[in-house]
């Protein structure tokens, strides 16, 4: 009964948020004198196949980023450093794959492992500082982001191959045999662009692994327990320092995957125009998806959808596409608010059930909640 209710309410909350975001964004558009109807009909139209492919691809990248943030969040660690981690990891992965020390997919595998290892090590710095020196991971990962920018810029210039006359630099291209082939989305006539990254499969696997580890294994239990209460974790025999370091490294390892779909599916090298800022998007997506693997996937798809659909706004409607950033931010905020409203409702139900169980002979008889009197409703 409650489970069904919970599920229903769980769906209701994001819906409420979407409506709120829609209304607020429309208000902004109206007050700015922009054509509201055209904007929404552009954004909300059914995407063409190639746009669907773009959405899935972008969502894949955002998903991995959200997952990386979520791993740390589950332990109450705030990894703002996914940005730096994926950047340095993608660079190393690109160099390794470009060098092609191993043939074919062995090379791919090696590059992926190296990227994850580098991401893990980079995040591990923050983990070690936190565990041994008590340095807030919030600060250290911010600092490490900036540092990784400089480090990668330096290394890129050292490692770069530059085509004569080109103004871009990049690492050596990954040989054809080591690329991860795309999955065609529809019949061939929709053009070569209607393909999604082969890496999507790996992203899905990462999501499944995340779910399994978090909810079914002892490690996941320890991680979540530590996140809820360090003191209780210590008392139950969890080595909190070790968990801190391992969790940060795990988060960094997942962050190491973030740039790889792009690397193996599209760019084939790491260079000046490699997509940036994915780590920060990941924070919003993890929060929006409530650290739940399916939720993160939906959040990533939503964000990617909005990005993709808003792209032509300027050309077709003459409205600056930044308007969807407002929509995205408002969604993040309103989703939480509506979850909070739903949560309070559920807690109240829970409370009354417990109370009934505690005193079976309650003269009040069957619960007759008087919500107007409720403390929280007033707050």
């Amino acid at each position: 009964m409650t489970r069904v209710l919970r599920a229903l309410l769980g769906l209701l909350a994001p819906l409420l948020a979407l409506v709120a975001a829609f209304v607020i964004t429309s208000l902004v558009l109206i007050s700015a004198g922009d054509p509201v109807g055209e904007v929404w009909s552009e954004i909300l139209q059914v995407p063409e196949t190639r746009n669907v492919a773009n959405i899935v691809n972008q969502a894949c990248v955002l998903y991995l980023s959200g997952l990386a943030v979520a791993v740390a969040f589950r332990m109450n660690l705030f990894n703002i450093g996914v940005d730096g981690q994926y950047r340095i990891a993608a660079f190393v992965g690109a160099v390794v794959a470009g060098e092609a020390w191993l043939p074919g997919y062995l090379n791919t595998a090696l590059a992926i492992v190296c990227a994850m290892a580098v991401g893990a090590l980079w995040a591990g710095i923050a983990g070690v500082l936190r565990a041994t020196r008590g340095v807030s991971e919030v600060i250290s990962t911010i600092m490490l982001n900036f540092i990784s920018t400089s480090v990668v810029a330096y290394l890129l210039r050292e490692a770069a191959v530059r085509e004569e006359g080109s103004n871009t630099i990049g690492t050596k291209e990954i040989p054809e045999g080591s690329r991860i082939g795309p999955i065609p989305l529809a019949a061939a006539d929709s053009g070569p662009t209607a393909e999604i990254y082969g890496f999507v499969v790996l992203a899905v696997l990462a999501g499944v692994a995340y779910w399994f580890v978090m909810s079914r294994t002892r490690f996941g239990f320890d991680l979540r327990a530590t996140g809820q209460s360090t003191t209780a974790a210590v008392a139950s025999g969890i080595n909190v320092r070790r968990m801190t370091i391992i969790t940060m490294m795990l988060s960094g390892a997942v962050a190491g995957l973030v740039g790889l779909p792009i690397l193996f599916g599209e760019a084939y090298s790491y260079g000046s125009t490699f997509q940036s800022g994915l780590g920060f998007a990941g924070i919003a997506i993890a929060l929006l998806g409530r650290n739940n693997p399916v939720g993160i996937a939906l959040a990533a798809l939503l964000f990617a959808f909005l990005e993709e659909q808003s792209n032509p706004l300027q050309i077709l409607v003459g409205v600056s596409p930044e308007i969807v950033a407002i929509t995205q931010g408002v969604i993040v905020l309103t989703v939480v608010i509506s979850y909070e409203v739903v949560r309070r409702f559920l807690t109240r139900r829970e409370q009354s059930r417990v109370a009934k169980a505690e005193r079976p002979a309650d003269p009040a008889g069957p619960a007759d909640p008087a919500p107007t009197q409720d403390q929280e409703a007033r707050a």
Partner: protein
Amino acid sequence: GGGGDDTASDGGSDSEGGSDSGLKVGLAYDVGGRGDQSFNDSAAAGLDQAIEEYGIDPQESAAEDGESESAREERLRTFVDAGYDPIIAVGFAYEAAVAKVAEEFPDSHFAIIDSETVEADNVANLVFAEEEGSFLVGAAAALKTETDNVGFVGGVETPLIQKFEAGYIAGAEAVNPDIEVQSTYLTQIPDFSGFADPARGKTAAEGMFDGGADIVYHAAGGSGGGVFEAAAESDNLAIGVDSDQYETADPSVQDVIMTSMLKNIDVAVFEYLTAVNDGEFPSGITRYDLSVDGVGYSTSGGQVDDIADELDEYKQQIIDGEVEVPSAP
């Protein structure tokens, strides 16, 4: 609505002079878009001139910071789908996107600025010899300096900006082999805030002036405003970039802009559109170098009039191939 729309249609309605050619031109800017007082604006100026003269129907769209490859591609495809032809992509960031989309739509025409690697029958590559123009302003700086110490502030350390640096240093050293050239960059890839952080630009330039320089050249986009301010506050000189910044700068700093390195993107865009208007779609590399006045230096303000002869001599030597200008430091 988005700015591109407003200004573009302004331009369109002003176009009394031109015959209505019916050309629909799409302009895809790099980050910053029209109004960046830098190289996007330069491209916009070329477009505006074409609107004026040929009465074409333009549409513009700007890139966002750190966007994905597919976003750039989609921008081009949206132009194609909406019937724009030709489409001009401003900046090397569009290199891969143009290559891909041009192949998808062989019947549409594209031009890309600052990239010569895209090879296709329907793509025109409009490239510049920034190092040559920079050489001249480097020489000008060396001729004008009283301390034998000049500076260079780059916005973001990219190969493109390094071309400016390389040419500048070569020019300065051609005049005076013992000259000291201080050089710095504000940020590195992928942090492109170095093109938009006047505060940092000012600090860097101040450091150079305090370190003995009396002329600083910037290739830092919007951060250059800080360089001008630093020069104004310390009674030194600065050199602008891309367009004649003497014309566009705030009056309070106008006097310190000794000259500007001109990178005539506007000319390139206008010439391309002229050709298109005449019914031909150019393709392949068009190099705008000193020989065609695609790059150069500005003279407004008159501060380099006294050394114009020497500079012209260098210019001729470069055109004749007597002087080789390096394109990387």
